[in-house]
């Protein structure tokens, strides 16, 4: 920054500090005359700040998480020094707290001085949106896109639109009294979609490749041998589900007996008008439905597909209507969630539908009937039901399951780097990986990190993104419907709407060079000083969003519009060639070095004045600290908290800088990692953890104790525990003694 101004607010208890000493820090150490105001966020105070001509403004007042409407000034760099929650509300006011406040001011000024005004990455972007999949989800998505005033492209691999719902005989009731079936909604949707001028439909089409970045996705599709190309700004993936292979359910008689079928096969029979026994073509009168077939079972699908109970109730009514027979439903639980409870109640009223909980022990043929033996029933005894037909309620798998989605899951080096991935995917051989690569893909993304949306648990797409549903690990690409979780048609429709809203947000933001969650609106993107790149490939591999492609040599090729601005790349780079304009290696290193570490050889009482740094991630850890302060909890005044965007952006050079400055201990507080990760940038805290394990070696070489650097997972709800965590760390390191490199 060319010119930096400093404002110190003395409201909210900050006046308990020695303001004169604070002023001196700014005046004598940095030559900036600070402006002191008793109530900076008032209309009058805000005016003064706004009218300041400097392009870097340091506001020493409350936390950066509050009063953003007052202190965020367009075109200027504002550095918020947290004297309120960070000092006076979370510490006793004494000499230590005073020194803490002064250090925070020093760090703030230095960071403001090192910051630069960013320029947005502006390109000619498209605001059209691609929808992949023409089932109920895709059709709804395309319609919502058109209704919102954007252009949609709908790509469907089958010759007809409608997906699975078009194959249904009837659909579940959507209005009271919930006892009248309806026509599947897809027929109406297909009509609306095909007659809408803003939607271009490609059926019998698959995607050959998608290259580029949000706003500039270049899509090539193959329609019956012809290639079509177009550009879109965002993508909604709505490719839905595929049925679990019932041939694996031999223990339930599928494949062994012709009269044991799946719920899909029954639906088809109903659509053709009669429910018959496949073995002899006679009408099926007594039909047994077995729920949770191959589901909620660690040997098959370990989860519940959420719709099969509803489907079986519906199909039981088909049996009553078409065959005037009896339908027996054997369930583990009746999962008719929400308003579907009304539907369950209505179906129960039917005299020919019999429901009981139970475990099926065996299925065999006897006298041309299929006998189903059930134990653990509600009737108080074991049952032996002689059925004409047995219907297995099999479940849903995502269409992404089994595809080679992300390279890191099956890397060539035979090591799977991330815990939440290796916990689910045992290491496979290189040959198996090659076979997987040959199976047809959905998106065929030309991303270095892999051709598909990454998957998480059970093969569904990773839209786990905790606080931000629909967001995936690929910016600008949104998953909706059963491809991301089993759901019924009503939920698919809502899901499609949600994904479309996100897609629209994405195209609008990237048109202005801005990113989406969690740093929505940020225009500052990482700059690469490629002359010094050693092609180590750490950044290209570790970027959680695949924002970096590689050339043949391994040099990173950034795609700024794919980037969520986490800074994990800059934390990874050993050459430190990556930086943001407003968040750089130089900035943080300088802030670390600006901390005044009392030198025992010069200063009196310096032995008592240990110094610690806490890197706190802005998503969970820093807010937890603020919340602890809001609740009056206090922690050691010897720690200097440096907010970082993600622990993954903590470069090991910061540790080196800190230790060589004489800092006694470094604590990294960040979000949980692992299979149920909470890290808002997916793997930042896990990477930090791994890097700090490597740092242990360096520490040992320097004859420093490994306990001086620690990574601890916290979540925002742990605000009551964070002060204790910090104090424990401080006490442990104090026991080890001061950093021997102090004063060097």
């Amino acid at each position, binding site marked *: 920054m060319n010119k930096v101004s400093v404002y110190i607010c003395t409201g909210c208890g900050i006046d308990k500090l020695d303001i004169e000493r604070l002023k001196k820090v700014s005046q004598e150490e940095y030559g900036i005359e600070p402006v002191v105001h008793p109530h900076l966020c008032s209309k009058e105070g805000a005016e003064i700040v706004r009218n300041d001509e400097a392009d870097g403004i340091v506001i020493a007042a409350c936390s950066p998480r509050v009063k953003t409407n007052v202190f965020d000034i367009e075109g200027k760099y504002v550095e918020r020094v947290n004297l309120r929650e960070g000092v006076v509300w979370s510490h006793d006011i004494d000499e230590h707290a005073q020194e803490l406040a002064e250090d925070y001011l020093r760090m703030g000024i230095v960071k403001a001085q090192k910051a630069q005004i960013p320029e947005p990455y502006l390109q000619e972007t498209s605001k059209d949106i691609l929808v992949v999949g023409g089932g109920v989800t895709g059709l709804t998505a395309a319609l919502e896109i058109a209704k919102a005033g954007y252009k949609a492209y709908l790509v469907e691999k089958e010759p007809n639109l409608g997906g699975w719902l078009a194959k249904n005989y009837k659909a579940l009731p959507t209005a009271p009294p919930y006892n009248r079936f309806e026509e599947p909604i897809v027929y109406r949707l297909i009509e609306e979609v095909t007659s809408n001028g803003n939607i271009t439909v490609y059926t019998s089409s698959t995607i050959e490749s998608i290259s580029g970045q949000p706003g500039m996705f270049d899509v090539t599709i193959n329609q019956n041998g012809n290639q079509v190309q177009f550009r879109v700004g965002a993508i909604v993936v709505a490719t839905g589900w595929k049925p679990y292979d019932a041939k694996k359910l031999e223990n339930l008689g599928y494949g062994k007996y012709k009269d044991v079928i799946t719920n899909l096969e029954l639906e088809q029979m109903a659509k053709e008008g009669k429910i018959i026994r496949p073995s002899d073509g006679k009408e099926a009168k007594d039909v047994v439905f077995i729920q949770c077939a191959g589901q909620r079972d660690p040997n098959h699908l370990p989860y519940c597909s959420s719709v099969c109970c509803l489907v079986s109730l519906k199909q039981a009514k088909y049996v009553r209507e078409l065959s005037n027979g*009896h339908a027996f439903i054997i369930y583990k639980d*009746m999962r008719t969630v929400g308003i579907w409870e009304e539907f*369950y*109640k209505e179906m*129960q*009223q*039917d*005299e*020919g539908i*019999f*429901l*009981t*909980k139970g475990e099926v022990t065996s299925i065999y043929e006897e006298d041309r009937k299929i006998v189903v033996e059930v134990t653990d029933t*509600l*009737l*108080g005894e074991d*049952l*032996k*039901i002689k059925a004409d037909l047995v219907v297995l309620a099999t479940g849903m798998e995502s269409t992404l399951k089994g595809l080679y989605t992300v390279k890191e899951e099956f890397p060539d080096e035979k090591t799977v780097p991330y815990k939440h991935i290796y916990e689910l995917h045992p290491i496979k051989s290189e040959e198996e990986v090659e076979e997987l690569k040959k199976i047809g893909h959905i998106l065929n993304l030309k991303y270095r990190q892999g051709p598909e949306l990454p998957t998480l648990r059970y093969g569904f797409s990773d839209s786990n993104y905790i606080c931000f549903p629909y967001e995936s690990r690929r910016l600008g690409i949104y998953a909706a419907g059963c491809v991301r979780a089993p759901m019924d048609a009503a939920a698919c429709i809502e899901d499609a709407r949600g994904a479309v809203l996100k897609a629209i947000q994405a195209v609008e933001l990237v048109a202005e060079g801005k990113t989406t969650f969690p740093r929505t609106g940020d225009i500052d993107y990482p700059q690469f000083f490629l002359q010094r790149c050693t092609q180590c490939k750490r950044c290209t591999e570790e970027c959680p969003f695949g924002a970096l492609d590689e050339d043949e040599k391994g040099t990173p090729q950034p795609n700024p519009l794919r980037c969520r601005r986490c800074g994990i790349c800059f934390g990874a780079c050993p050459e430190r060639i990556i930086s943001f304009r407003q968040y750089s290696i130089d900035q943080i290193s300088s802030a670390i070095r600006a901390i005044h570490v009392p030198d025992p050889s010069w200063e009196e009482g310096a032995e008592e004045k240990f110094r610690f740094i806490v890197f706190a991630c802005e998503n969970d850890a820093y807010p937890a600290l603020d919340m602890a302060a809001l609740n009056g909890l206090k922690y050691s005044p010897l720690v200097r908290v440096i907010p970082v965007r993600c622990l993954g952006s903590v470069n090991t050079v910061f540790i080196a800088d800190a230790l060589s400055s004489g800092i006694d201990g470094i604590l990294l507080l960040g979000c949980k990692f692992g299979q149920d990760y909470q890290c808002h940038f997916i793997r930042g805290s896990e990477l930090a953890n791994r890097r700090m394990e490597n740092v242990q070696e360096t520490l040992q070489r320097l004859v420093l104790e490994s306990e001086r650097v620690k990574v601890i997972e916290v979540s925002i709800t742990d605000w009551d525990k964070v002060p204790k965590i910090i104090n424990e760390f401080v006490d442990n390191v104090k026991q080890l003694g001061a950093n021997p490199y102090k004063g060097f």
Partner: protein
Amino acid sequence: MEVDVKFTKEIQELGGRDLKKCFQCATCSVICPLSPEDRPFPRKEMIWAQWGLKEKLLNDPDVWLCHQCNDCSDYCPRGAKPGEVLAALRARQVQEYTFPSFLAKLFAKPIGLIVYFAVPIILTLIYFATFNPQIPEHEIVIGKFIPHTHIEYAGFAVGAWVIIVAVISVWRYWNYVILNNIPRYGEGAARSFFDGLIQTIVDIIYHSKFKECGKASYRYYAHFMIFWGFIILGIATIGDIIYIYVLGVKELALPIWDPVKILGNIGAFLLFVGSAWAIVQRLSDEKIGAGNYFDWLFLLTLFGVAITGITIELLRYAGNIGAYYAYIVHLILVFALIAFAPYTKFAHLLYRTLAYIWAKNVGREVKK
């Protein structure tokens, strides 16, 4: 495992209309103050009824352990009214075991009202045709209209009929329902049959089971009054018989301070208040349900007997000739009440008592 849809429909028509609503949450069994912990009721009866398991339900004595306190219906989250379902099942068992079954089946439905009243009315007409009783002028003395001896003979005849029917029905009930359930449920207290009998009688005298009622706590008082009112009326009748045959009293137009009369009035008052209270309370709670036709027939007949009896007395003391007409109506109602007792809810007298003797013998009561 055969499901009988017809049977389910029968139970629904007998009052268990909402039985299909049950989803086996077991709240009813938990809340029932009379249900034992092992294989409690009424939950299992609900699902058996949904599946039309006729054999199981007709052989289930647990339905008689229920006193229809209706806590279950009150707590049922689905409004399945298990209290009503068990009442329907009791009606259905009475139909099955009382001899001959077709009469029980007849009286369980409103169409049976025709026979219910036709029989006593026709008998009354036959009597009038045969004996041509005359309404005395200038005095209200019931015995001069229809001689008491005629009433006695009719009473013995009806009584004999009822006893024969009861013995046959109880025999059937005992074999199918009670004996079928001894090996199946047996555990816990193994007392003697006599001991069980005494305990049951004590329970009845104190109405201890009724005391457990939560929601419908009025039932303890109402039933107590109906039960004891009826017994006191019976004692008063015995008093009358002693007057006639032992003390040689010619006319039973007793004055109001006569001890037997006083007893009779107390009985009548209890019966009247008890049945009126039951009628009013039954209609007061929609969630619990008002009870089925089978129950109402008995209750209204009792009430009718009480009110016509009181009417006769009031009219007699007022010197009004209407007393004689009230007497005819009263006799018709009393006939229906007693003669058809084994086929109506009145049968619970025997079935429930036997079920409790059984329950005490196999240890099927709530452990206190």
